């Protein structure tokens, strides 16, 4: 999966360790990179996004903030405008509500409003997603909302190697990048285990370009376009259905902005069937955009109607059974695939 030229030595890392490794390598390489947010210092990030970095880089570069998202995102913007490369953590995507103005009216628009004269090279990291009963204010994905607002790139890794490679690209990018990691992909000891959360990761510099989707499983019968944790569920279902002769292709988008529309068209051009799996809310979002990518191009590519497996426009319920009824889990993905082949 590495896009770098020479084959590299790898070892198995969790997604969170791979992400931290990319940050550390970029901090070594570029003294203007620093990381700030809530509980990113001694705690190491609530979802282990900064484990060990305080010991390595000290409190000047790994900075705990007050619970003042508007102020510290704005600080990141200002520092970026002056040529630094801040990485700013908003602990949960759900907390965008208290600081959205800085993100979408400032971070995302300054380059445009300045006619390209002012750059804002910053990364905003956020944890997303549900599946562990954290309720309606701590379980949302919301990546579709960020992707909808022009001016910020949106990265959504699904596995350790990509978490590293995409982080490297995000830090080096001259535009603002929102890097959204699903809690369920991080390989945390205190959450449900997922075998794909620990995998081979290149040791040295590892760059995965933004805007390049990845065919994580080739298949001929139906394309599942998905992202983040749902990639894992889609792969599980694909493996389960393979013995029955249902051959599923799984496309991991990796980033929403830029969106690799070519890859979507190519895969659906081959299979003629599309299932979109997205843990964000269904309407007005990612799944609709994926479908529009096909229909804008040639609705005739589709041999059967598209199936969307997303959260049915309801806040994420707390009770486990209710939550699992609305999340795009294996049962719903399987039913959608079966219905389309």
């Amino acid at each position, binding site marked *: 999966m590495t896009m770098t030229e020479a084959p590299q030595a790898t070892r198995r890392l969790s997604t969170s360790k791979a992400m931290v490794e990319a940050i550390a390598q970029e901090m070594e390489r570029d003294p203007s990179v620093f990381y700030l947010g809530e509980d990113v210092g001694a705690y190491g990030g609530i979802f282990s996004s900064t484990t060990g970095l305080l010991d390595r880089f000290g409190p000047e570069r790994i900075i*705990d903030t007050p619970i003042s998202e508007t102020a510290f995102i704005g600080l990141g913007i200002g520092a970026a405008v002056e040529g630094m490369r801040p990485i700013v953590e908003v602990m949960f995507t759900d907390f965008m509500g208290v600081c959205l103005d800085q993100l979408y009216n400032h971070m995302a628009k300054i380059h445009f409003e300045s006619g390209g004269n002012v750059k804002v090279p910053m990364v905003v990291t956020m944890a997303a997603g549900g599946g562990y009963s954290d309720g309606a204010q701590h379980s949302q994905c919301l990546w579709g909302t960020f992707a909808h607002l022009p001016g910020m790139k949106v990265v959504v890794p699904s596995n350790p190697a990509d978490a590293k490679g995409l982080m490297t690209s995000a830090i080096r990018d001259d535009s603002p990048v929102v890097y959204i990691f699903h809690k369920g992909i991080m390989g945390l000891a205190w959450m449900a285990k997922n075998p794909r959360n620990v995998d081979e990761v290149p040791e040295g510099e590892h760059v995965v370009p933004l805007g390049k989707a990845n065919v994580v499983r080739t298949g001929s019968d139906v394309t599942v376009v998905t992202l983040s944790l749902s990639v894992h569920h889609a792969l599980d279902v694909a493996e389960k259905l393979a013995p029955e002769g249902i051959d599923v292709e799984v496309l991991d988008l990796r980033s929403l902005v830029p969106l690799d529309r070519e890859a979507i068209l190519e895969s659906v051009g081959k299979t003629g069937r599309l299932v979109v799996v997205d843990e964000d809310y269904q309407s007005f979002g990612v799944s609709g955009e994926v479908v529009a990518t096909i229909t804008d191009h040639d609705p005739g590519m589709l041999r059967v109607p598209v199936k969307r497996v997303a959260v049915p426009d309801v806040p994420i319920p707390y009770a486990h059974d209710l939550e699992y009824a609305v999340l795009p889990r294996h049962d719903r993905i399987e039913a959608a695939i079966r219905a389309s082949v």
Partner: protein
Amino acid sequence: MTTEAAPQTSTPEDVARPEALTPEVRLKLYETMVLSRTYEEAILREYHADKGPGFDIGKGLVPGEMHLSAGQEPVAAGVCAHLSTDDAVTATHRPHHFAVAHGVDLKKMTAEIFGRETGLGKGRGGHMHLFDPDTHFSCSGIIAEGYPPALGQAFAFKRRGTTDIAVAVTGEGAANQGAFHESLNLAASWKLPVVFVVEDNEWGISVPRSASTAIASNADRAAAYGIPGERVENDVEAVYDAAARAVRRARAGEGPSLLEVHTLRMWGHFEGDAQGYRPELADVNKHDPIPAYEQRLRDEGLLDDDKVDEVKRLCSSAVEDAVTFAKGSAIPDPSTATHYVFA
């Protein structure tokens, strides 16, 4: 809250409420704190009962994040002693002590925490999202965001000509959010009947107050909005006295006040938090406010072994009844997962 035609049981004529620290009030403060602690201990037990092997936060009868309030009982007991259930309380992600002290039904609250159909929110909300129209109680998992709605509840009470008030609660970490400052200013300039409470437990997750806040006392921030500000220690009677002043002022139509209590988070930020960042951890239990208050009341002859046993027994049976009720209640039907999005 969205109850229709909320009962108007208090009027300007009955502004006077019991404020003196009579023996009855003192015993009640003690009982409220014991009930709250008993409740938190039961939730702690149930929460950890089935998270294994290891610790999986999404597992068990009570899954998800769990923020417990042990050590902070004096704040809720001392403030809510001045309230009736016609007054509103907006609490935080750490809401149970305020819910208990404000008289939220223990069974319905526990059923909510267990994600049951009989819960306050029919299992949709969970422990950070408790909404009880009967007592005008609510809470939010977003830091400081309980402050603004309290203004509106106070506004409605005032418009209806009652002397009911709203109490808004945050932690000291939340006092660095915009919503906190916007709310103080708006309430002050409109003289809304709000009591703003800050629970300073010295920690915002792993960040000590000294590392997040430019001044030592949030009570000083009241000056910026032209309202009274007071800071007291984690002593339920000190809280009671200070809250009496703030509540009286609000009910009299003189506007809001800010009360900060220097309190104590005895347990982790949430369950599962190893608290490696916390140097004073070994000493925490020494500062438990409940045994200290119990001793004081014993020394003054208000409590003895029998009375203490009786209080603990009654609290325990109320709490265990609530847990039994929750466990025996129906799990919501997954086919109803999309209900209640709209009225």
